[in-house]
């Protein structure tokens, strides 16, 4: 997973992939609340908006009060289902968020009262207390911010397996359903359900605290949270044939990342990651043609890039540099994405700066995928000959054996050097290793274009 995730950032010469529809991240419909066709559009929009705004607040506060993760999720899910059922008949309430919060809390109280679990029953008083001040969170928002931060940090606790952290974050923070998460990660629904159950059981039984880590732990824990968000984002950014789900994952990661910068405004890394995600996401519409096929970065129609997302990304990048002038990994990657996003054309791209940034990243991080990206960037800055020998060097290390982007990068540099026969062989190797779908078809088209010279 990590390899593919990093590969999505090989912005230099390797194919750049994306999905057809672009939306500004905040306007995207949360897929968990997607209503059916019988629901009027205004109601559907109101439920979607309430879902985006309230889901994590509701779940976070219910977990704090009940200590029961499944109960909190079920009560929240039921409240949104009730809204879809009743709002078309009764009309959308004046304050949809407060309506759903109250319904969810009442539902949680019902479940507590019906429960045979003694530990849970002891939470009834706390739950009643919570119901007595239903509008508190809509006033100051301070306690609730703490609740949501607690939720994010607990989902991303290092004592949980990385797959569990990702799944739990999508379920409880972003509000995706279990089948949606299963589909996004290509695992059977039962496997994903089991993964979530195990993670929640471990939180409860191993004593993982529901809190924001104290100051001395905040930095190391925040790194883990950002890594989870970036994994989620990249799972959505790597092009598959299920564009709608790809995009939903990326927009959810951006939404949670944006929330994190609001909650931790002094974190340069959080701003840096948000910038990185926005600047990559901005190019989404340009990455595919009308048939949904992949278009390389050089050939993209830059007018299709999302100008608003680029502006938001650049603002977040500025914020991160104001807090920390010495860029960390996310800031460096975001700066590379900014070089691409602000270049008027492929030829006008500042590849020297990109190569320098990648070289810095490679010096700090021994990851072979980073080394590959640095090698590709060098080729774009210094020419195909230099690029080819740099990629050959990475290839010779053997650390990326079986990884299709290595022969793909070699093929691309060989093509640029006019060595069609050698390029064809490397394309064949890349095609054999690439996952089925848009990326493999892209390589096949490139391979075919070698034999029949392109019409220009």
């Amino acid at each position: 997973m990590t390899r593919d995730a990093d590969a999505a950032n090989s912005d230099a010469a390797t194919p750049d992939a994306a999905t057809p529809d672009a939306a500004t991240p905040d306007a995207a419909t949360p897929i968990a609340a997607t209503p059916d066709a019988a629901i009027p559009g205004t109601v559907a929009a109101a439920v979607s908006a309430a879902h985006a705004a309230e889901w994590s607040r509701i779940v976070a506060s219910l977990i704090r009060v009940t200590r029961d993760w499944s109960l909190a999720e079920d009560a929240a899910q039921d409240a949104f289902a009730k809204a879809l059922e009743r709002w078309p008949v009764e009309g959308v309430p004046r304050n949809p968020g407060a309506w759903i919060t109250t319904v969810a809390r009442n539902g949680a109280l019902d479940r507590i009262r019906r429960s045979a679990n003694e530990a849970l029953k002891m939470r009834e008083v706390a739950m009643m207390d919570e119901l007595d001040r239903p509008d508190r969170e809509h006033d100051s928002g301070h306690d609730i911010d703490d609740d949501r931060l607690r939720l994010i940090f607990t989902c991303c606790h290092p004592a949980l397996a990385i797959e569990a952290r990702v799944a739990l974050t999508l379920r409880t923070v972003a509000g995706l359903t279990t089948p949606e998460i299963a589909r996004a990660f290509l695992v059977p629904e039962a496997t994903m359900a089991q993964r979530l159950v195990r993670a929640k059981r471990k939180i409860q039984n191993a004593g993982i605290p529901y809190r924001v880590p104290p100051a001395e732990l905040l930095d190391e824990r925040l790194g883990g949270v950002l890594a989870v968000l970036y994994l989620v984002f990249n799972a959505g950014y790597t092009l598959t044939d299920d564009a709608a789900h790809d995009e939903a994952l990326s927009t959810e990661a951006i939404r949670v990342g944006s929330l994190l910068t609001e909650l931790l405004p002094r974190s340069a890394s959080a701003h840096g990651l948000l910038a990185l995600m926005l600047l990559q996401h901005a190019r989404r519409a340009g990455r595919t043609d009308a048939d949904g096929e992949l278009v390389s970065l050089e050939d993209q129609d830059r007018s299709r890039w999302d100008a608003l997302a680029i502006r938001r990304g650049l603002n977040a990048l500025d914020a991160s540099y104001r807090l920390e002038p010495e860029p960390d990994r996310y800031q460096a990657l975001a700066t590379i994405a900014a070089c691409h996003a602000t270049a008027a054309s492929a030829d006008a791209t500042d590849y020297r700066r990109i190569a320098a940034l990648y070289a810095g990243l490679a010096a700090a991080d021994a990851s072979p995928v980073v080394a590959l990206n640095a090698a590709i960037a060098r080729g774009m800055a210094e020419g195909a000959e230099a690029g080819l020998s740099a990629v050959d060097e990475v290839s010779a290390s053997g650390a990326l054996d079986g990884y299709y982007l290595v022969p793909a990068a070699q093929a691309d540099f060989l093509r640029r050097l006019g060595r069609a026969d050698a390029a064809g062989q490397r394309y064949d190797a890349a095609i054999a290793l690439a996952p089925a779908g848009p990326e493999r078809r892209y390589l096949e088209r490139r391979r075919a274009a070698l034999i029949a010279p392109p019409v220009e």
Partner: protein
Amino acid sequence: MQYVMFVVVDPEGEPYVAADDDYAQWDADLEQRGVMLDKRRLRPADEATTVRVRGGELVVTDGPFTESKEWIAGFAVLDCADLDEAIAIARTHAMARFGRIELRPLAQANGEPLA
């Protein structure tokens, strides 16, 4: 929450540096804080004996129940507020560097963790 902290000898750990082995200090700190309920050191795994009964037959074998390069050298029982406190204690044990530490929540008779 109560945890058993297993101290594990692990050949993949960092090379042992006697000067950095501040076990006595670690031990004294925990005793003073009153979070350590019990602690024991174990004799090496090659002195272990494994006992099984299969089809009514006693099978006694020399050595630990699993062939492994890692072996449990000792354990402590910790009484902590939560897993973060247990991790904070474990990370300061010298063997977190030179070996590894495993934290396991203790169960009650009904299988629930001890609060």
